[in-house]
């Protein structure tokens, strides 16, 4: 999918009911659909089989350390919420993944590698920030000297039906990092939902030949200028309605300057090192390895599990942890996201989805931390100049 050039000239209008046909085509093509679903009061990404599984008329309210969904009976919109705690990451890069097992057989040892994933996954309703995140994890797992075979194989079999964001959430800041609210490619199909009491339709954009093939037989109409304008207006407004803003000017330098120069005590005292931010982050890719054996000691299994740089033993080296304090771990995390990542992968490690802000139990806000860091550095500089005089 990613290799094909986007075929962006095909823009249609599709009605809600016709989406059912699209879903049928996707299923018929052998894909398992993963889409937004309301579970435990939260928009999760889960297996879906039909349009009915989508969270109809649900809106969400997101603020630092706060997440609430609301159901409106009169609202029949499909995508009036933003991202929940899940991102596609958990399907292309599962939280627990068995790598191989080793057996002792008659004194010999044999390694049985885990087969590569065969399931074709179709991601439904994926937002532009998460598309950007997939592009980033692609670089991490596919773009370097060593690649992750399981991730690569899984990604090769994805179909993506994206949804542009017309109602940004309270912790969103994709505009600041240039990833949204409108998807810029990297999808097979992309929807923009236009919903009001008067009318309800979707602008449907095809990004690949596979996307075009998937809408064959589905009732669509060419998009009129007026309808396109309506959608554009909503997306333009969305750009201005971001709940947060990240100051990205000179950001990398700022972070590197701050690493040793200023005090990270304040955020270190707040941070619980709970790892939530890294678990919900769509680009965090750290893993650890677990080894287990059966009781007879003849079979051992190696499992890769998500890890977090906020875990105490993450940086363990014979006898001690390199980053034993929360302040050092927070500094490491934010420095990686906003500075180190640029050196490593040529992109920020942050896509502006706001999940780390929403799901932080004490509401630490990455955008505010950047502002605070800027202030602390400025104060230090001012003090240094004052001393010189």
């Amino acid at each position: 999918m990613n290799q094909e050039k986007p075929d962006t000239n095909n823009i249609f209008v599709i009605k809600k009911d016709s989406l059912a046909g699209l879903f049928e085509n996707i299923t018929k093509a052998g894909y398992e659909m993963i889409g937004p679903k309301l579970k435990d009061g939260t928009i999760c990404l889960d297996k879906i089989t039909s349009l009915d599984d989508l969270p109809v008329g649900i809106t969400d309210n997101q603020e630092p350390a706060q997440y609430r969904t609301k159901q409106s009976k009169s609202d029949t919109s499909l995508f009036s919420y933003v991202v929940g705690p899940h991102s596609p990451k958990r399907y292309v890069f599962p939280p627990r993944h068995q790598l191989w097992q080793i057996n002792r057989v008659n004194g010999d040892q044999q390694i049985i590698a885990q087969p590569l994933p065969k399931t074709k996954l179709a991601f439904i309703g994926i937002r532009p920030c998460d598309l950007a995140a997939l592009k980033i994890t692609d670089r991490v797992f596919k773009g370097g000297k060593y690649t992750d075979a399981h991730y690569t194989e899984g990604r090769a079999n994805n179909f993506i039906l994206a949804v542009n964001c017309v109602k940004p959430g309270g912790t969103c800041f994709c505009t600041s990092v240039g990833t949204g609210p409108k998807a810029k490619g990297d999808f097979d199909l992309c929807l923009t939902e236009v919903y009001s009491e008067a009318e309800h339709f979707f602008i449907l954009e095809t990004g690949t030949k596979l996307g075009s093939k998937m809408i064959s037989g589905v009732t669509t109409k060419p998009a009129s200028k007026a309808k396109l304008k309506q959608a554009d207006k909503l997306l333009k407004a969305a750009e201005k309605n971001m709940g947060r803003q990240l100051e990205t000017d000179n950001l990398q330098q700022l972070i590197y300057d701050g690493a040793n120069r200023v005090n990270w005590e304040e955020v270190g005292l707040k941070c619980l090192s709970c790892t939530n931010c890294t678990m919900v982050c769509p680009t965090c890719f750290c893993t650890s390895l677990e080894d287990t054996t059966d009781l007879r000691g003849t079979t051992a299994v190696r499992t890769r599990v998500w890890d977090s740089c906020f875990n105490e033993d993450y940086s363990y080296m014979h006898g001690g942890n390199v980053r034993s304090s929360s302040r050092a771990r927070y500094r490491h995390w934010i420095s990686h996201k906003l500075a180190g990542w640029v050196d490593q992968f040529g992109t920020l490690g942050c896509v502006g989805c706001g999940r780390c802000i929403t799901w932080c139990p004490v509401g630490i806000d990455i955008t505010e931390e950047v502002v605070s860091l800027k202030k602390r550095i400025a104060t230090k500089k001012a003090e240094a100049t004052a001393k010189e005089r």
Partner: protein
Amino acid sequence: MENVISPTKQSEPHSEMTPRLHTVQSLTHETRDTFTIELTPTDGGKPNRFAPGQFNMLYAFGVGEVPISISGDPDKPDRLIHTIREVGTVTKALAHLRVGSTIGVRGPYGTPWPIDKAKGNDLVIIAGGIGLAPLRPVLYSILSDRRKYGQVVLLYGTRSPSELLFRKELQKWRARFDLEVKITVDRAVDPWQGNVGVVTTLIPRVSFDPDQTTAMLCGPEVMMRFSIMELRKSGIPEENLFVSMERNMKCGCGLCGHCQCGPLFVCQDGPVFPYPQVKKLMNIREM
């Protein structure tokens, strides 16, 4: 069972994370808590070739994996040699291996020492403790091509005389006229007749042409920092200093995130770094 990587059949593991099984051919105790193992692949092939400074991930059945640098001679490719210190659960399990035991090996990974770049220069090799192990392949390579280098000095510091690695080889090296070996220990009792004091004290005692010298350092970070201060006093340019860094590693190949030190993946960008690349990072707390 298409995914079985049989010890008898040679088959490429399809994932970077799958080890190649090796048989322990010998296990020699170097000191109270260090030992050297020699391995050959169970598939009958040769061990993967390596460059001095690189490391492998060694897997002990059911216990886990550890990154261990290769301590053997790169020109003797029939056996893979590792020198290991018992410090954690995996290294303890490895210490209990016997001849004929099987372990998993992934690698080699990481950047090598700049052996070619150092040609024509004087060489100062500074090792602390187990840090001599990743530098031994450097000595093998240099001694096999001795004429390409100027003065070669090995400065080796360790805790006590009983914790000296590779004693027999050290003896041989000391006897050579084309290699200056200075050893010091942090503390000693009789009958030790050698130097006592930290490894940095050896630096002013050896002569080299600072403008034409390459220094390679491996040992605890604090030892490398102190040694670099001393080397800088003698006038070696920063860009001629190379250090081998250590961090927690799970994958060894840049995918797990653990070994990051600032923007660097120690496993992939290192473990051997030109000093200017890590200079600032080495001085930041909890990096």
